[in-house]
């Protein structure tokens, strides 16, 4: 081996920002290989993936619609991840948000009030936070691993929604199909741009990003999160409560995911269905890391991930590429990102002796 891997004296700041770009470039290069293998002109394929979906105003608005739940979930998760609190269950918290928020409409479906939607958003946040509160309690009380508990609660949440939709919340005029009533005007997110599906949820996402940024940069709790994440012992010497941070980050992440759930069901979905998210809560984990857990980075990462969904559809329509390509594409981004992250703490060096070093 001519090259060897050497630990850097300290993590490289430059690499923190460079590795997402390197991962992206590697993904593009490798996917071009995949496209060539599938018999499709790689340049044309990339054009369909990245340019065609957003080369008009409507396409751009759809990108924001798709990115909204991803960004909302990811911003919530990033705060926990910074403090080494591994909430994997945003998908379940999103579902509970939809249940709480959508449930308010189901029971007040004939109420026409300007307070209905704000009430739904608030309840959605509470629902998501409550669901995330379970892993927080189990972690702080019994030291149960929050990765497992939060993940398992995803399945409970999905089944809970299914139970409600198949039972008491089923649309009485829905031909027995498992879905709730269509949401009324006053329970629907107002559109921002007429003629598109761009809705108020996107503004909520932007507010969430800015709020989180301020919190991390300017508040004591933000400082505590960063310290405990970077050096848990230093945090405890400084008297910061680990438990408090666990509770705070999980509840915060749950609330954000809950708002994402409400934003989906009272936005583009328009009713409660047995399945309301194609895995936004899980994709948001990739988004959070791709965005380096930084609010601004998360916006870009959310837009990129959303684009791969839209691009996958366009590539199917125009080039007949199979739907699995989208999944391969997203998988490669994460894979290369993790691989490149080695470069943050390590570097390649020439092996002068020419021997394989252990």
């Amino acid at each position, binding site marked *: 081996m001519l090259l060897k891997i050497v630990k850097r004296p300290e993590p490289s700041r430059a690499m923190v920002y460079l590795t997402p770009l390197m991962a992206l470039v590697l993904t593009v*290069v490798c996917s071009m290989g995949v496209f060539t293998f599938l018999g499709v002109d790689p340049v*044309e394929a990339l054009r369909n993936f990245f340019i065609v979906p957003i080369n008009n105003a409507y396409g751009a608005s759809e990108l924001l619609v798709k990115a909204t739940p991803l960004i909302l979930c990811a911003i919530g998760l990033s705060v926990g991840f910074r403090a080494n609190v591994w909430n994997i269950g945003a998908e379940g918290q999103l579902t509970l948000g939809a249940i709480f928020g959508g449930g308010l409409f189901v029971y007040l479906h004939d109420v026409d009030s300007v307070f209905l939607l704000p009430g739904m958003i608030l309840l959605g946040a509470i629902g998501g936070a409550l669901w995330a509160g379970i892993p927080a309690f189990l972690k702080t009380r019994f030291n149960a691993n929050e990765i497992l508990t939060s993940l398992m609660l995803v399945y409970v949440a999905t089944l809970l929604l299914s139970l409600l939709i198949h039972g008491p919340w089923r649309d009485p005029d829905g031909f027995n*199909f498992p879905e709730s009533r269509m949401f009324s005007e006053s329970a629907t997110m107002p559109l921002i741009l007429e003629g598109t*599906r761009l809705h108020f949820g996107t503004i909520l996402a932007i507010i969430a990003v800015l709020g989180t940024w301020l919190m991390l940069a300017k508040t004591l709790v933000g400082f505590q999160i960063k310290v405990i994440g970077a050096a848990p012992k230093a945090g405890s010497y400084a008297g910061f409560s680990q438990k408090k941070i666990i509770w705070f980050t999980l509840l915060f992440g749950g609330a954000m995911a809950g708002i994402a759930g409400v934003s989906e069901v009272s936005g583009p979905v328009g009713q409660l*269905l047995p*399945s309301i998210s194609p895995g936004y809560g899980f994709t948001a984990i990739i988004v959070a890391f791709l965005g380096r857990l930084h609010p601004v980075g998360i916006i870009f990462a959310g837009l990129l991930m959303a684009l791969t969904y*839209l691009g996958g*559809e366009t590539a199917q329509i125009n080039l*007949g590429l199979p*739907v699995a390509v989208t999944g391969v594409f997203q998988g490669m981004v994460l894979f290369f990102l993790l691989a490149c992250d080695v470069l943050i703490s390590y570097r390649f060096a020439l092996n002068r002796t020419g021997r394989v070093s252990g």
Partner: protein
Amino acid sequence: MTSKTIASVLGAVAVAGSMLVSANVSAQDKVGFVYVGPIGDHGWTYRHDIGRQAVEKELGDKVKTTYVESVKEGPDSERVIRQMAADGHKIIFTTSFGYMNPTLKVAKQFPNVKFEHATGFKRSANVSTYSGRFYEGRYVVGKIAGKMTKTNVIGYVGSFPIPEVVRGINATALAARSVNPNVEIKVAWVNTWYDPGKEGDAAKALIDQGADIIMQHTDSPAPLQVAEARGVWGVGQASDMHHFAPKAQLTAIIDNWDRYYVARAKAALDGTWKSQDTWAGLKDGMVEMAKFNEAIPADVIKLAEETRDGIINGTIHPFAGPIKKQDGTVAAKEGETLDDGTLLGMDWYVEGVQGKLPK
């Protein structure tokens, strides 16, 4: 990968920036299809895709067909349909019930594009609906099942408790009990159109409860494969699935969209397209029976063929009275036949179906 390929890929990357903005021009008319499952489901979506290929073959260079597979019912479907409409498609087939509202929404914004929605009940000036009378096939299968079952239990893997599915269950029960009054039907709901794991588990549970014939209203061959493995009978769904279960498949109810898709695509291209509702069955060839399993006794095959031919020439109607509902009330007296309106809203079981219909 050869070094030449690598070089060409790298070269392509280099010029990508400049070429990415070049436009894609095509003179052909486009015909679009939106699928709820993967084209490799070997059932529902697979058959729609065969229909798409028929359009491509029949109309040749005049058209370009496009499709998007595994499109979730809900917000994603609206975007896909809209994208196709904005992309200059002449006609778009949306092939799942859950695309109904999105199809109508997009159709309103694109009055010059024709839409064809499968299995729905809402139409407009540029939205047609179409579906097959699959219950006719179920009725033929029911006759065979009634004769072939030893345990007198038919297991039925259901997707959603909507009229379309309930109709198939009832047609099966009526036919089976007309040749064997002791037959009972057990239904397991999986609440999905396509999930091989869930479908297979449901089939296993039904067999464990004594079913020796498995029927399904879900799109994958999984229930049939379970039947093959467990040594009971099964019935192919939407397409001939005998490759998956050469021993177990009694027959299959085949959806044949070819003729309809070719006719509607042609009509859209030459300007004769009109909004309409089509509900066609065995007679029009939209529903077909696959080859009957050779292990079925000759007299049962004869009965099945007579039933099929009777439905085709109109002497047999699966929902001819007397029909009793599960609770014992009369749905149709001797000499009466349920009309299409009743069939389309069917939300009750006939006698012989076990369990309560989820409501």
